[in-house]
């Protein structure tokens, strides 16, 4: 009896030892791979050579990145993605991502560029590189019209619904520790949770909440802007100077051409309604 449990203990310990070995192995080789980044698979040259650019977009976030009933990807980000590919002279291959695997998708070379409503934060800047912004937003809070939440103090001790990996999650975790967060994996899940009454309110980017509350008239964006204003930018893998510089130039060019206002009117306006103007979302020409 004793002997048996001892053998089991050894087995368990050795499994953990093996795991540790695997993990430390990873750590070591990661240093090597980052130092030898000369053959960058996502450089402009390489993308042109391949003839395709792999762009990460959302698949369930109208009006930014979603799929219409004909099975086509459309939205504000997707229109930008098509323009980027056109200006690079390559085909575009979309990779659908969730909010919390956008960074991993870049870092493991699954995609060249992320155009998925990606808000710039200091934490994210440490692990990936952001290009110039093409949109501005801040965190908003949506709640049922029957029990509206209009100030942050009302949320004390209540459940607030967020999606993992979003700016709203970070803001509430660090700045509003008195609230209880209910975290979900996808946009679909978070809105279902709000509809099922699992939380008093839901926090996400305000522009997106305007759109959602327009379609769901029982809910209202009680807090229009909470926390600092933030920007939405294309993102590339850390250290990918080649594509970063190209994207910066591209954003400047498109902003000057009024591409984003056009994109706004085409993709976002039908969703946001009259209370939001293009200048609330699109950045001005400098």
């Amino acid at each position, binding site marked *: 009896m004793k002997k048996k449990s001892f053998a089991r203990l050894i087995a368990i310990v050795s499994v953990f030892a093996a795991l540790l070995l695997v993990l430390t192995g990873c750590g070591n080789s990661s240093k090597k791979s980052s130092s030898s980044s000369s053959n960058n698979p996502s450089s402009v040259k390489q993308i042109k050579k391949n003839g395709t650019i792999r762009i990460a977009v959302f698949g369930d976030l*109208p009006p930014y990145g979603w799929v219409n*009933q004909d099975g086509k990807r459309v939205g504000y980000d997707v229109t930008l993605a098509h323009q980027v590919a056109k200006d690079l002279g390559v085909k575009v291959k979309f990779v659908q991502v969730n909010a919390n695997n956008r960074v991993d998708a870049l870092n*493991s070379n699954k995609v060249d560029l992320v155009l998925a409503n990606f808000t710039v934060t200091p934490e994210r800047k440490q692990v990936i590189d952001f290009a110039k912004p093409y949109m501005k937003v801040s965190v908003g809070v949506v709640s049922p019209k029957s029990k509206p939440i209009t100030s942050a103090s009302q949320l004390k001790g209540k459940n607030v619904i967020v999606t993992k990996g979003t700016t709203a999650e970070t803001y509430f975790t660090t700045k509003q520790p008195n609230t209880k967060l209910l975290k979900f994996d996808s946009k679909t899940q978070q809105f279902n949770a709000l509809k099922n009454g699992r939380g008093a309110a839901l926090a996400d980017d305000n522009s997106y909440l305007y759109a959602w509350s327009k379609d769901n008239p029982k809910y209202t964006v009680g807090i229009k802007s909470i926390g600092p204003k933030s920007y939405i930018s294309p993102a590339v893998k850390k250290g990918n100077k080649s594509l970063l510089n190209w994207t910066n130039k591209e954003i400047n060019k498109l902003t000057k051409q009024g591409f984003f206002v056009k994109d706004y009117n085409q993709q976002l306006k039908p969703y946001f309604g009259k209370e939001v103007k293009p200048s609330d979302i699109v950045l001005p020409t400098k």
Partner: protein
Amino acid sequence: MDHSGISVLFEGTNFTRLLGGLWVTVKIAGVALILGLILGIVLGVLRTFKNRLLRLILRLYLEFFRIVPTVVLLFLFYYILPKQLNFNLPADQIATLVFALWVGAEMSDIVRGALISVPKHQRESGLAIGLNRYQLYRYVLIPQAITLEIPATINLATRVIKTTSLLMLISVMDVINIGQQIIEANNHTHPTGVFWVYGLIFLFYFLIDYPLSWWAKRLEKRRLERTNG
């Protein structure tokens, strides 16, 4: 604007897209099961051998895939390992690989269990009539083990098919992922669409899994009839 949620399913190409997603799900689960079963049978046989080192390694392999949750395995193989080892496979191939390795691990334990539960006199009789090890497994142990392992194997298969719903996390366009796209795209016109889309997905999974578990039950019953007369 009298929209009933069910019409979401038949608008545009929605229904064929869902079927396409289901095909991806079935393909990944099917290929993974075939590869995993072959791997599992080989490993299961090896695990009944006396060599201690071999058994330890295979045991570690089994425990690793059994203890680590499938979500973690998918992330490990899709995001972390490619970065370190510099290989890059598409998401559906990674998914097939992970599921095959997982099935292989679980299957090796099922096969090992079935092989050692073949009555001892069978093995000894085999050896007594001068069979070598290959012949012993080929003609005596494996044929008798198969009937013992079939119900557990089918059980494993239904589990694998259900677990494919995790694949949306690594950007595989499986039936759940496409379902979510459709729900979100139609949320403003069909607020009740979510019920119908998930309902249909439930029906899809049920139609695949139920026949399997019915089959498992029937085989088990037949086996009991045969052994107990």
